């Protein structure tokens, strides 16, 4: 099994308050820690579990800054074999279709593959589109929101989590792309020896030119989306203080509840 796992470096909103940068087009990262996107963490674990069960290798692919190498090394420490970090200022990173093009180029550059895993959703922009678009770019089948995987010979059985707790089971031919849902497994902690070994594993850095991608096809000009503004909505709290005698208050409150459809 040759597996690729695509991971994204996102702000960790659990540790600090999110602030928008001065330009209004990104998150202020100065006081913020970034880490692997939650769902991607499960994708990494799943890729390593598949490798442990079926043999083969796992390559990590990520588009991100130099600082994201710590995150990539963590995936290597948990058992992935090598990695490509793509960094190129020209990539329109807010557009999942173009991001998918870049990821696809990196994966195709790695030769034959059986499986590509991504998280089902990125915690920062929440588009849920990259994995599916990636399948399209690679011209292979996909299953999204996968909560359980069984790898068979030449195909994979994917259990998809649908609304209302429904499970859909699909069998797809390999190669395929699966977008992994959180909770599919229990991500391991990297053992210290794994961290040691990860230092020796190959982490290649590539730009668009190295990948043979025409910048004009994936830059802001190629994107159908313009990121206008990022802002934190003002929190407005509206409270209505009901005045009057107890009976009057009760009557007013009841009227409000009925009107609001709450009773």
């Amino acid at each position: 099994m040759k597996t690729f796992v695509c991971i994204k470096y996102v702000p960790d909103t659990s540790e600090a308050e999110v602030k928008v940068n001065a330009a209004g087009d990104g998150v202020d990262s100065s006081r913020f820690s970034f880490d692997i996107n939650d769902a991607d963490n499960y994708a990494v674990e799943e890729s390593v579990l598949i490798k442990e069960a079926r043999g083969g290798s796992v390559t990590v692919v990520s588009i991100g800054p130099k600082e994201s190498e710590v995150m990539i090394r963590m995936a290597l420490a948990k058992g992935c074999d090598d990695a490509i970090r793509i960094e190129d200022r020209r990539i329109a990173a807010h557009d999942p279709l173009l991001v998918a093009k870049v990821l696809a180029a990196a994966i195709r550059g790695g030769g034959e593959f059986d499986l590509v895993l991504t998280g089902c959703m990125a915690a920062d922009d929440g588009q849920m589109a990259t994995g599916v678009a990636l399948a399209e770019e690679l011209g292979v089948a996909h299953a999204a929101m996968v909560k359980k995987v069984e790898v068979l010979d030449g195909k994979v059985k994917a259990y998809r989590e649908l609304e209302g707790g429904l499970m859909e089971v699909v069998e797809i031919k390999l190669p395929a792309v699966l977008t992994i849902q959180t909770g599919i497994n229990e991500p391991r902690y990297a053992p210290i020896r794994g961290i040691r070994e990860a230092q020796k594993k190959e982490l290649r850095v590539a730009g668009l030119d190295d990948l043979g991608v025409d910048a004009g096809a994936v830059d802001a000009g190629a994107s159908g989306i313009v990121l206008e503004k990022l802002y934190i909505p003002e929190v407005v709290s509206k409270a209505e203080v009901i005045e009057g005698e107890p009976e009057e208050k009760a009557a007013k409150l009841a009227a409000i509840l009925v009107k609001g459809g709450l009773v």
Partner: protein
Amino acid sequence: MDFTLSEAQQLIKQTVREFARKELAPIAAGLDREARFPQEIIEKMARLDLFALPYSEAYGGTGDGCLAYAIAVEEISRACASTGITYAAHCSIGTDPIYLFGTEAQKQRWVVPCARGEILAAFGLTEPEAGSDAGGTRTTAVLEGDRWVINGVKCFITNATRAGVAVITAVTEPGRGTAGISAFIVPTATPGFRVSPPYDKLGLRASDTAEIIMEDVRIPAENILGKPGEGFKQFMRVLDGGRISIGALSLGIAQACLDAALDYARERIQFGRPISKFQAIQFKLADMAMAVELSRLAVYKAAWLKDQGLPFTREASMAKLFASETAVRAALDAVQIFGGYGYMKEYPVERYLRDAKLMVIGEGTSEIQRLVIARELGC
């Protein structure tokens, strides 16, 4: 000068933090309440190779060194200081003496299983009559043929009940003072080696502290560490390293106090606003954050010096003193910020306070640290 942690150190910090937050933090209050030693956590830590951190690969370690280890102690203690002291005592006073002064055979026999976390180690220095004045050891060791015969009592020994091996100091040449003290590797299964029931402690209640009683404990002659008479010099060096551990442990507790106090101050509303908006509370938090940061610098620097093979006695002592007093102060202030809730077992800060107090006592009290620093200054 470069203050950035190496990539490996950052990964270790992240891994241990995540482990501590998910596996340890949720059970820490219960462990304290029940005074239960978390054997399952120790096994998980062993699987993560945490006990291997400070040791070289030749002896079952990962070769990451003292700084990486100090970071691990900090992160573990941030969630559970009891587990922090189990870990710290095992590595830096239990295993380190053998790692530092053992023969090749002793290191293979004992450091390797300790680094793998297969057995726990303890260090028996303190005695009822020899605390701060650890040179006043009464325990004796007499060579009879090919055996050392040890008799004596050690008190307040961390990991005593759980340990597979204990390093014990004893007088081998009476009348020679500190030059007559030697250190021994004592397998705890040796006949005559007993431990008391565990102490009922103020804090660190989930750690194992007991008395060791040795009555005609016979160990092979080769179980002496180094040469006869070197024990005092050896444990002075061991304690230098141990102080980095206690500094790191203190730092973890102080950080936990800051985390809890800051969260609480932002949420607790009095007089119509969060108490974090009152300057009196802000100043406490600012002082706490500053002291935590400075403790971290001091502890990491001492650990870094040790990793570089540079002298670190003075820095280790300063780091231990500063970080431990910071932990106590931070815990007191955290309780204060929590008000009445802080006094209740339902909230974690009263535990932090009880745990923090050991930091200014163990491995040399604050008074003793000041003596060490003054001696280093040439007083």
